[in-house]
C-alpha cells in the first residue's frame, strides 16, 4: 500500500491540532512545508500514514523579538532570511542561520521549507538545525496540557522522530539574547547534496576582543549532532592561528562520522575540523574581532 492518506486536517486552533494528533495517534503525521514529506512520498516510509495534520492555519508564520527572538515553526526560510538581512545587528548575531538558509540551493526550497520542519527532521545533515544548535535555540512545544520549552538538542532526538508526546507539535523556535556574531560553514560535493561536514559557531566577545563565550555545533554526515559549549581552547582567548588549530583538533576528536560511498569516516572527521575552524574564524571576523 503506497502513501495514501485518506484526509488532510487543517486545524484552526492549537487545541484542535492537539486533539487531532491525539485522536489519530501513529496514523497521523504533521506536515509543515511538506518538502521532506513529498520527497519521501514514494520511499515506503510513509505508507502507514492515514492523515496529514497541517500546521499552515495556526498563525505560526512569524519572526519577531529583539532580546528574545521567536520564530514560528511554520515560517518559511525565505522570510526568516529577509528578517535577519534587514538589520545588520541581526545579520551578525544570527549570521549562522542566514548563512545556512542561503546555503540551500535556491529560493524555491527556501520558500517552501520551514524552520520548524528543518528542526523536526532531526538530522545532523540539516544546515538549519546545525545553525540553530549553535545559536542555543530552544523548542516551544504545544500540546494538550499547554506548552513546554526544551533545548533543541533534546527535541532533535532521532532522525525523523523528534521528541514529542501524544498530541504535541513544535510551535516555535526561541533564541535568547542573540548577541555577538555567528557563522555557518559547510562542505558539499554539489549544491543539492547533504553536506559531508558542516559547522556553525556563535561567539560573544569581551571588550578586549577575546572570546567571552562560544558555542560550536557540528553537523553533516555524523551519527549525531555535536554541540561544544564554550570550549576551553577558545574562551578568554583571541582565535589566532594557534587557537584555530586547537579548535580544529577538538572538532575532529568530537565527531562520530558516517562512513559511506560519499566519504570515508576519516575524511568526514578531517572536514569537521576544517569547518569548525572556518566557522569560528568567520564568526570572529563578523563580530568585529581581529586576530592579527
Amino acid at each position: 500500500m503506497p502513501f495514501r492518506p485518506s484526509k488532510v486536517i487543517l486545524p484552526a486552533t492549537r487545541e484542535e491540532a492537539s486533539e487531532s494528533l491525539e485522536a489519530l495517534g501513529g496514523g497521523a503525521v504533521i506536515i509543515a512545508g511538506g518538502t521532506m514529506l513529498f520527497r519521501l512520498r514514494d520511499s515506503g516510509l510513509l505508507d502507514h500514514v492515514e492523515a496529514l495534520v497541517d500546521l499552515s492555519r495556526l498563525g505560526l508564520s512569524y519572526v519577531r523579538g529583539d532580546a528574545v527572538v521567536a520564530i514560528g515553526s511554520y515560517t518559511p526560510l525565505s522570510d526568516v532570511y529577509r528578517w535577519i538581512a534587514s538589520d545588520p545587528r541581526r545579520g551578525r548575531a544570527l549570521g549562522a542561520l542566514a548563512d545556512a538558509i542561503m546555503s540551500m540551493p535556491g529560493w524555491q526550497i527556501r520558500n517552501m521549507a520551514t524552520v520548524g520542519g528543518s528542526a523536526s527532521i532531526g538530522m545532523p545533515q540539516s544546515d538549519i538545525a546545525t545553525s540553530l544548535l549553535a545559536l542555543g535555540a530552544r523548542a516551544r512545544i504545544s500540546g494538550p496540557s499547554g506548552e513546554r520549552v526544551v533545548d533543541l538538542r533534546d527535541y532533535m532526538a532521532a532522525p525523523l522522530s523528534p521528541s514529542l508526546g501524544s498530541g504535541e507539535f513544535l510551535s516555535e523556535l526561541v533564541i535568547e539574547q542573540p548577541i555577538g556574531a555567528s557563522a555557518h560553514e559547510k562542505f558539499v560535493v554539489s549544491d543539492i547534496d547533504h553536506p559531508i561536514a558542516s559547522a556553525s559557531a556563535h561567539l560573544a566577545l569581551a571588550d578586549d576582543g577575546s572570546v567571552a563565550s562560544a558555542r560550536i555545533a557540528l553537523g553533516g554526515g555524523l551519527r549525531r549532532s555535536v554541540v561544544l559549549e564554550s570550549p576551553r581552547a577558545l574562551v578568554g582567548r583571541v582565535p589566532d592561528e594557534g587557537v584555530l588549530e586547537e579548535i580544529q583538533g577538538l572538532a575532529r576528536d568530537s565527531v562520530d562520522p558516517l562512513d559511506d560511498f560519499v566519504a570515508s569516516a576519516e575524511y568526514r572527521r578531517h572536514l569537521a575540523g576544517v569547518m569548525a575552524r572556518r566557522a569560528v574564524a568567520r564568526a570572529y571576523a563578523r563580530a568585529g574581532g581581529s586576530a592579527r
Partner: protein
Amino acid sequence: MKLRFTLNGSAVELDAEPWESLFDVLRNRLGIKSVKTALCEGSCSACGACTVLLDGRPIYSVMTPAYRADGRSITTLEGLSRGGELHPLQSAFIEAGAVQCGFCTPGMILAAKAYLDGGGGPDEGGIREAIRGNLCRCTGYVKIIEAIRRAAEALGGGKP
C-alpha cells in the same frame, strides 16, 4: 478535497487527493505541459523543471501538496504572455539565444520573473542566485544570465 484556486488568472475548481502534488494536478489533470519533472526518482534533486509561482513566489510543484493551492494564485509559463504579446523575459530568452533543448526554460523564466518582480536588477550575482534552484544541462547558463539581464534592463528593475 475540493480546491478552488486561480491558475494564470482563471478560476479553477477541482477535487484533489491528499497525496497528490501540485505537479500531479497541474500537469496530469489540467494539462499544463510547461511544468515538468526530471530528476525526481527517489528524491528531488532541485532541478527546477517543476517550478511554478505560488502567490508570486517560486516553489517546486512536485514537493508541494496540491491542497496548498486552495485559495491561492498559481502562475505557470502559460500565464505570462498577454494578448498574444510575449512577456519581456520570453522575448529576451529568444533574443539572447538562451534556449537550447528548452526543458529548463519554463522554470528558469518563472524563477527570473519572481526575481524581477521582487525588484531584482541586472547584476550578475543577483541573477545567478535567482536561478540557483534551476539546472540547465545545455547552455552553461551564460546566455540565460544574459537574457535575464536584458529583461531586467528592459523592465528597469533594480534601480532605486
